[in-house]
């Protein structure tokens, strides 16, 4: 299958030797929606900026449509839409001016879609950017990122700080782009419910590496959380030693272990290895899985 976006062993450290990414490898196929997860500081924004060519990987490579975004910035950017949480639009311009500028920059601009989105989002063309609310400004950015029918849409925490209705509009616009233009989408988000709705696959960054890269259905059906009562011989190390155990979090009187196995097989493995029977193993939503995996490794 054609790869639209490829990260291969991407490494990036900031000036003071702080490692953000060390060896991130994954790729996106055409027409896929992938959710990029990770705690604050996990490197999601850094990675998206590297894909945009705004930052350079210190080693490893990134390819967008098979091109290096640092070498072919214009060819890449014309085919990519990008919205970030802290996107700054020139405050002295009107909504109409910003849209005019983008229309001029993108040969594939679809005026009908631009008008349609602007009216869905109730954007007034004459409004000054400086007078817009945070949500309104983000909507303007989305119109600009979507109306040229990009082949790849990069959304960096697009819904941060938005109300639920505005978040739903972002999801619906993303799905519309996928349906109408076949757009491939990579989006980072802390809203796990949004990710569960629209993403087909999730990539979770942790400690600068890819901790999980699985389809969502696979993650939900093939993984579970086991609640193991603390007791004789039950230790974090022994649980981690069981095949399929991805992480263990120590709580007051129990240990929570994430297994890449079905609940039945996890319970059986714990019974065999630790001689503890009737362990409660259950499938959980993404949010709980996320907390169990990255909330307890520090």
């Amino acid at each position, binding site marked *: 299958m054609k790869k639209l976006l490829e990260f291969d062993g991407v490494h990036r450290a900031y000036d003071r030797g702080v490692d953000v990414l060390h060896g991130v490898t994954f790729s996106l196929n055409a027409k896929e929606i992938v959710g990029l997860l990770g705690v604050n500081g996990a490197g999601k924004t850094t990675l998206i900026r590297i894909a945009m060519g705004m930052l350079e990987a210190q080693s490893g490579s990134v390819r967008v449509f098979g091109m290096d975004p640092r070498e072919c910035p214009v060819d890449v950017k014309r085919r990519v839409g990008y919205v970030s949480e802290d996107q700054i639009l020139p405050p002295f311009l009107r909504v109409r001016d910003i849209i005019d500028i983008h229309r001029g920059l993108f040969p594939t601009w679809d005026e009908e879609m631009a008008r349609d989105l602007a009216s869905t989002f109730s954007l007034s063309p004459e409004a000054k950017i400086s007078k817009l609310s945070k949500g309104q400004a983000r909507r303007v950015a989305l119109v600009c990122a979507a109306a040229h029918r990009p082949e790849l849409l990069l959304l960096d925490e697009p819904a941060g700080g938005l109300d639920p209705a505005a978040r739903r509009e972002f*999801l619906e616009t993303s*799905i519309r782009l996928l*349906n109408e233009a076949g757009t491939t989408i990579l989006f980072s988000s802390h809203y796990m*419910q949004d990710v569960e*709705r629209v993403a087909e696959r999730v990539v979770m960054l942790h400690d600068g590496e890819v901790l999980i890269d699985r389809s969502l*259905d696979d993650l*939900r*059906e093939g993984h579970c959380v086991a609640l193991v009562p603390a007791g004789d011989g039950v230790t974090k190390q022994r649980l981690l030693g069981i095949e399929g155990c991805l992480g263990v979090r120590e709580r007051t009187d129990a240990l929570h272990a994430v297994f890449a196995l079905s609940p039945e097989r996890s319970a059986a493995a714990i019974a065999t290895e630790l001689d503890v029977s009737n362990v409660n193993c*259950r499938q959980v*939503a993404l949010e709980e899985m996320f907390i169990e995996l990255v909330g307890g490794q520090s």
Partner: protein
Amino acid sequence: MLIVVDPQSGVPIYRQLMDQIRFHIASGLLRPGDELPSTRSLSAELGVNPMTISKAYSFLERDAVIERRPGRPLIVAELAAGEMREEKMDQLRETLAPSVTVIRQLGVPREEALAVFGEMLRDEENDTEEER
């Protein structure tokens, strides 16, 4: 269509869609020959990835619950009378399965559990009578 997606539940979304469509068929809300929304329109309506919708539809088609016709909307398949009954019983078993687990966990004996269930059914029937 009357479908609600809950991303918070541990059940994959394509499963939720399958379960709800099957339930609507078993309960008679959807009848044989009724058209189903297209993948696109349902994905837009629910704000859900279209791949998820088509996955649910493919599994339902494999199970002969719905029928694909070239270039036309999907429809609910004809079911023989016996199959319909079987489908209803499947739905009922699935719904009751968690109760069986709870009964075990609480250690309630079989006879008492059955008595409680019978009582609840009777109460519900009486309530419906009174409303009439």
